């Protein structure tokens, strides 16, 4: 029994038909996901879409020539047209100077139109129609079984198994070439790898997978699987090998979860699988560990917090210079930094840190806070001096630039700037530039 061959399916206690559906979908999804990674990196994701539409006339051609629904002639016809799509797109782009996306649009829609007409002509003789190409017949295809080496398998599982194995062999054998061509076709060419040959091999594989998959799952799932798992994987990793692995896992997960949801609803299984793939992608976009929206927002927030914290410190330092007898009120400080949540949190955080302290009528710097504030104010004022002396900025244009730059100057840069303006004691506005005393870090003055 198939269940005993793959123990993982026993987990779900599938019957024969469910096994056939899920196994077929997994094989399709893995094949597509692996190829999709290369398409994504070469920015050719839509070529997969184009090919999967454009193979229609190829299928019809294969059928018309042999007058049978045997898979191999249709596969050959569709692969021919699939590669033709890529070729025609390239010809239009190169020779007729049509923008690439428009060229692709013209080619695949025209081929699809031809395909619909051809199928319309032959449809009276056979149950091959265009909607079957889009939706697939996963449920009925599962009933059609064949026996190989004593094991009874659904025919689609057998076909897709062979195709999936071919894809894996293709990827493993041409790993180095595919990788280099995906990232830098010009480098590949200088290394003696024919980028064009690899390109068309990839296109043939995409066409082959699309064709083999169409009758089982339809072209919707193929297009979704060529793009979504690869896109999700690209949000999660920067390594090619791991990307392929994640994409394949994502394809498997879409197949299993999609079927689980679709079955009780009586909804289209391939459709639901592509929706699940989309959902997985959405999760990856939001929660991706280094490129996700959440982590990016967090990083931005941390940067803003650091800047506001530093602004509070340098503001307290300046306040001390102007009116050392009076402490700055907390509400005033918040209002001066634009109000809102961030300054409020920054002041709370600084208090917690022990860089500022509560005083009777407001907040003031602690010794620790003063040291950091000195560094900041020093950076600020030195940068103003540098802008004026070396770059010749007018006096009223100095502050805004220094206000930004002070947060990003490190010790080495402060030292260089100080040297460039001969370590002045006052800045262009006549304010004293803080000196080394009391400073924890070496601020770089030459005495």
């Amino acid at each position, binding site marked *: 029994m198939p269940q005993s061959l793959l123990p993982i399916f026993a987990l779900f206690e599938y019957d024969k038909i469910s096994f056939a559906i899920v196994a077929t979908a997994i094989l399709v999804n893995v094949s597509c996901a692996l190829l999709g990674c290369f398409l994504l990196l070469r920015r050719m994701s839509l070529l997969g879409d184009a090919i999967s*539409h454009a193979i229609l006339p190829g299928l019809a051609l294969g059928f018309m020539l042999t007058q049978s629904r045997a898979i191999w002639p249709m596969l050959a016809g569709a692969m021919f047209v699939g590669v033709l799509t890529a070729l025609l797109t390239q010809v239009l782009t190169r020779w007729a100077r*049509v*923008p690439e996306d*428009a060229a692709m649009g013209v080619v695949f829609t*025209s081929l699809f139109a*031809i395909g619909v007409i051809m199928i*319309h002509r032959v449809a009276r003789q056979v149950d091959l129609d265009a909607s079957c190409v889009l939706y697939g017949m996963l449920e009925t295809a599962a009933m059609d079984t064949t026996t190989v080496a004593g094991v009874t398998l659904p025919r689609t599982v057998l076909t897709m198994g062979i195709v999936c194995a071919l894809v894996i062999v293709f990827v493993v054998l041409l790993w180095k070439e595919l990788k280099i061509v995906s990232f830098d076709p010009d480098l590949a060419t200088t290394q003696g790898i024919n980028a064009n040959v690899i390109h068309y091999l990839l296109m043939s594989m995409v066409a082959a997978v699309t064709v083999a998959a169409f009758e089982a799952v339809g072209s919707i799932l193929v297009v979704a699987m060529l793009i979504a798992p690869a896109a999700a994987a690209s*949000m999660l990793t920067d390594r090619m090998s791991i990307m392929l692995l994640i994409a394949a896992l994502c394809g498997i997960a879409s197949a299993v979860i999609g079927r689980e949801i679709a079955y009780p609803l009586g909804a289209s299984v391939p459709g639901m699988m592509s929706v699940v793939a*989309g959902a997985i992608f959405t999760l990856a976009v939001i929660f991706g560990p280094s490129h996700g929206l959440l982590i990016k927002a967090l990083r931005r927030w941390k940067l803003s917090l650091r800047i506001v914290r530093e602004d509070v410190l340098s503001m307290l330092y300046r306040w001390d210079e102007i009116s050392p007898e009076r402490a700055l009120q907390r509400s005033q400080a918040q209002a001066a930094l634009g109000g809102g949540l961030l300054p409020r949190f920054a002041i709370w955080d600084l208090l917690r840190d022990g860089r500022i302290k509560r005083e009777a009528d407001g907040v003031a710097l602690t010794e620790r806070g003063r040291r950091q504030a000195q560094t900041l104010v020093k950076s600020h004022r030195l940068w103003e001096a540098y802008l004026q002396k070396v770059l010749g900025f007018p006096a009223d244009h100095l502050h805004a630039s220094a206000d930004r730059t002070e947060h990003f100057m490190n010790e080495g840069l402060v030292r260089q700037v100080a040297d460039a303006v001969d370590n002045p004691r006052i800045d262009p506005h006549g304010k004293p530039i803080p000196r080394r005393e009391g400073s924890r870090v070496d601020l770089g003055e030459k005495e």
Partner: protein
Amino acid sequence: MFGLQYNTLLVIAGTGLLGLSAGVIGAFAVLRRRALMGDALSHAALPGLCIAFMLYGERNFLVFMIGAVISGVIGVLCVSLLRHHTRIKEDAAIGLVLSVFYGAGIVLLSIIQRQRNGQQAGLESYLFGQTASMVMQDLATIIGVTLLTLLILLLFYKEFKILSFDREFAAVQGWPTLFLDLAMMVLLVITTVAGLPAVGVVLMAALLIIPGVSARFWTDRLDKLLLLAGLFGLLSGVIGTLLSDKLDDLPAGPVIVLSGSIIFFLSMLFAPRRGVISRVLQHLALRGRVARQNLLRSFYELSEPDLPALKTVSTEALVHHRGWTLGEVKRLLNSAQAEKQIEPVGASDAHQWRLTAAGLSAAADVVRVHRLWEIFLIEHADIAPDHVDRDADQIEHILSPELIARLESHLFNAGRWPKAAVPASPHKIDAGVMSAKESA
């Protein structure tokens, strides 16, 4: 009228107008490199259609339209969000929206079809289009959409124009680019959704893309481009419907698209200037002119020591001088002889040639420009004398008369140029070196 039935006329009017508005609004999309956005839109509209049907419970064009427009706009927003805020590139974003929305649409469709009234929805027709079943209400919608599209384009023509060519400039000038962008997208969505029942999801993308791309071959002006795109769209709608009516009930949608494809193909081949045939001819003409000029310069250089006496030059000397093949030289000599720039000396099989007076003056012009550029390169671009020949060889054929005049007066003022005569070559003319360079 014209021997056509009322229904056929209605369909022709509908598809023609649809082609017109899709062509015009699609031309903008093509210009802005968003050709496939229409494809994504028409797929993304499907879940909206289904939800509209589920909520409303029966077939109603306006309700379908609203649902489709909403989900289409959401799809477009998703593409733009992914493109701006993640590392996903635009093509992948379009593909993702297209396939996932479409998958969701198929899921909803399959659920609807299980319901009691599901078969009445006629939602299937949105996938492939059923042009022949178009009714007066559909035509009215298409007329409304077309008028709306054309009116808005007319009102905001200047704004859309600036947005299409230089979005940053438009933003700097204070145009509300985001609003205009959105307005254009909404027009695209409305047109797409209006076309779905007639031609279906995939072929709607064709109606948006193909007229614009075809029109682009004929003109560089936006107003003409829009007119032509509209015309091509109209033509493919009308011709396609007529053909499908005449030809053994072929489905109209694909025939309309194929009519458009044929217009595209003809435009690509025969358009002046940008068409493939015209470009090949231009290329051949340039090659012929370059070869002729090289021949004349070789004649001049070979006979230079004896000037003003015109020396006889043998075919072999020319072959050696430029590194041409014998066949090429013979062809060039024949054409130059036909234009009386050279004349044979002695017997016709002696392979001896001499410049005519006209040929000498043409050759002198070529050599002047060549050396002018060489001297310019040596003096102003700091290129070594033994390297200038090849650079000049490439540029001499395409220098404009204005540039030549400026170079001449520049060098003349510097005392480096004899007015109106051919200066001596700044480098040694060595036939062997020349041919080696040429063949490189």
